[in-house]
């Protein structure tokens, strides 16, 4: 295959576009996911696809990859009108896709996972050296015989990418690839992508991390409500300008105002150790920190480094010993259950919205009852006071602008952002003295994320202590007063956000910051 154009300028590519979409429409029951979408990709171009959750990006790439069929519209591949009916056909044309939620099989080996994405895999004995060779060529080293569930998140993504690269793709689609990577891993991914683009491969890059898009991409298409609303050169736009295009209106970015008067320590953790909460989880070892009234302490780290273990120990879902390892408002709490800890003033927002933070099949009012029954007085002699419960849920919906169906709607019917606003609102309206919140804006659109950040900052300003566990370093830098990094079950020292170097945090997240215990296996 000839490389037609080494570095095409946006919209001015010469020769034949690699992929041309015109008027793509797709309707789902109740929503028009894609409405007349046009998109042109040139050879060697890294093209960003931007948009809020629900803007129709995922639907569009699924249509390109043959997972979904468009209701209307045409597709040209290298100038030829084509219909793509299946992922097999997409792969034969030279389209590869790295999925947002990894399409890997935990119990299978790396080589087996790669084989499942190839149409003619050959024998395993032939495949292993090819996996190594392709991995080395693009800086994605992998051990073919390791079982996927033993791999770190970054390594898993390498498996996905190698699987695509094995078939010499002409177009690589990447759906939010860096949301799970450390800054260093992300930088390394960018190098791989630039090298691929240099070889003439087109890359369609979906992300909501605007700085990243500005650094990496040559062109951007912005979608909103299923339509293309703008096409631009991201290198010439500001991040705020791109965000405005995505949301369609201006919004205020929440930020710390600093100078908060710190009160007494609300949460004191000293020498907390706990075995893994789930099989294959990460145990935590000798964790110590404290959170004072009025401050937000951020805990950074790549998922799978002990966050789940720490969170379940803090929420009270698992009790630990000694009882003094966790002190809430001056009381020994490590041996107490969630209910007793709530009585001491703890509120908790878990990572998983559906199933952990809420019961999807129950109404918002019933979900409000689940954590608010005691502090809001929603029970009387064992009976539910439905009127008060509905009022409480109604107050949450109003205060936090939760859109969708009202308090009688099932929690599972809300969009991710709205449900998250509801769950955070449910805890915040109970005026907790101490809030432990995990990944509050994961998979939430920029508008809702800004509202959630503002609510957390307001709560801290009113004198609550907040522990914020997040993978999103930008979020922590934006609203946390101090940051510590959890890596391999160990917690680093705390850094004041104002003085911290991102570089150093990134190294700690990659497990390289501990001078004492450098972890070779995670070297990036």
């Amino acid at each position: 295959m000839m490389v037609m154009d080494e570095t095409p300028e946006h919209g001015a590519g010469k020769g034949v576009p690699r992929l041309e979409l015109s008027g793509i429409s797709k309707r789902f029951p109740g929503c028009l996911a894609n409405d007349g979408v046009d998109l042109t990709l040139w050879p060697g171009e890294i093209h960003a696809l931007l948009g809020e959750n629900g803007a129709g990006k995922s639907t569009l790439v699924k249509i390109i990859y043959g997972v979904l069929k468009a209701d209307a519209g045409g597709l040209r591949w290298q100038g030829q009108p084509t219909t793509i009916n299946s992922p097999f056909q997409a792969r034969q044309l030279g389209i590869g896709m790295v999925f947002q939620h990894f399409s890997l099989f935990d119990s299978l080996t790396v080589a087996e996972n790669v084989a499942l994405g190839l149409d003619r895999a050959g024998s395993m004995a032939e495949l292993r050296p090819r996996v190594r060779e392709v991995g080395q060529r693009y800086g994605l080293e992998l051990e073919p015989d390791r079982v996927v569930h033993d791999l770190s998140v970054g390594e898993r993504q390498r498996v996905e990418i190698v699987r695509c690269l094995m078939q010499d793709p002409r177009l690589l689609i990447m759906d939010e690839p860096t949301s799970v990577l450390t800054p260093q891993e992300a930088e390394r991914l960018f190098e791989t992508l630039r090298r691929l683009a240099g070889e003439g491969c087109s890359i369609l890059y979906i992300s909501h991390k605007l700085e990243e898009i500005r650094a990496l991409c040559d062109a951007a298409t912005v979608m909103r409500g299923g339509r293309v609303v703008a096409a631009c050169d991201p290198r010439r736009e500001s991040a705020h300008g791109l965000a405005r295009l995505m949301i369609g209106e201006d919004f205020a970015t929440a930020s710390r105002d600093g100078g908060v008067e710190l009160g007494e320590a609300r949460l004191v953790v000293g020498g907390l150790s706990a075995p893994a909460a789930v099989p294959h989880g990460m145990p935590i070892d000798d964790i110590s920190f404290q959170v004072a009234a009025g401050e937000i302490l951020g805990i950074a780290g790549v998922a799978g480094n002990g966050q789940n273990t720490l969170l379940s120990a803090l929420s009270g879902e698992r009790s630990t010993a000694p009882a003094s390892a966790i002190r809430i408002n001056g009381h020994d709490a490590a041996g107490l259950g969630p209910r007793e800890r709530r009585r001491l003033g703890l509120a908790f927002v878990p990572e998983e919205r559906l199933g952990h933070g809420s019961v999807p099949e129950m109404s918002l009012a019933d979900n409000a009852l689940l954590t608010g029954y005691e502090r809001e007085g929603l029970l009387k002699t064992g009976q539910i006071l439905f009127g008060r419960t509905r009022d409480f849920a109604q107050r949450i919906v109003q205060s936090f602008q939760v859109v969708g169906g009202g308090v009688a709607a099932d929690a599972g019917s809300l969009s991710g952002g709205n449900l998250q606003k509801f769950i955070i609102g449910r805890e915040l309206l109970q005026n907790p003295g101490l809030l432990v919140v995990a990944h509050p804006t994961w998979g939430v659109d920029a508008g809702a994320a800004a509202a959630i950040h503002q609510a957390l900052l307001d709560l801290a300003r009113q004198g609550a202590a907040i522990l914020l566990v997040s993978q999103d370093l930008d979020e922590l830098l934006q609203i946390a007063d101090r940051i510590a990094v959890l890596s391999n079950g160990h917690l680093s020292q705390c850094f004041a956000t104002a003085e911290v170097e991102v570089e150093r945090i990134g190294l700690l997240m990659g497990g390289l910051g501990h001078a004492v215990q450098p972890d070779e296996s995670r070297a990036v």
Partner: protein
Amino acid sequence: METLAAVLVTVIGAATPLLFAALGELVSEKSGVLNLGVEGMMLVGAVCAFAAALTTGSPAAGILAGAAAGMLTALLFGVLTLSLLANQVASGLALTIFGVGISALIGRDFVGTPLPRLPLLEIPGLSDLPVVGRLLFGHDVLVYLSIAAVPAVIWLLDRSRTGLILRAVGENHEAAHALGHSVIVVRYLAVMFGGAMAGLGGAYLSLAHTPMWAENMTAGRGWIALALVVFATWRPGRVLLGAYLFGGVTVAQLHVQGFGVDIPSQILSMLPYLATIAVLVAISADSVRVRLNAPASLGRIFHPDS
């Protein structure tokens, strides 16, 4: 020595139907489909095998009919759970009840009719060797088939591309679908293989173990096969071990009862279950390995358009 050999031969008789049914269920579960209708499929296989062998006079026709009938029953289950998205547990239980009923209906006129036993494959010379001859040679074709099925299933699952796709579908059906593998087709094939194997297990009962038809003649073997799959942590080699262990203890406790030992017979009847559970729990104590073998999508319904 001759008595020992005779005992061991009856062990094979007790183990073979379990081995067939459990291997079939294992393949079905590895693809992510939990079919609790094994007992029903075995019964339908048993009665159809008996009817075909009796009316045609051909044991081969009986065996084929047993496998085909089990497969058809499983196909019914497949249509319900894979195409119509019905709940797998409820459908499986219904399939067992259905199998009990329809096999009784089909077998109405056969109750008490005798049938010559499935012929033994005598190998001149070898089968006449003392002890070893009777143990290793001179069984019927189904016994050999059931043993041969163990390495065949191991090869299918661990070595072949089909098996890789089947395991992938059972592990994470959304991902398999996204990669373009046909979840529904793979599951139909696995379920039908499971049905055919259950049917063969039933055929062994009505053609060889006790060559006759009686209502409910499987007597819970389908449920034991289901339990074996779980306790064997979805590994064919362990299914073989479990089936023979269960068969062995069943026969041994019958002999103990025969000697008139002063232990209540109910306690002795429990022994096979206790022994099988104890041994298989002991070898599957490593929870990490169990997790890796257990199909993560087991029992979950796949909606292709979500």
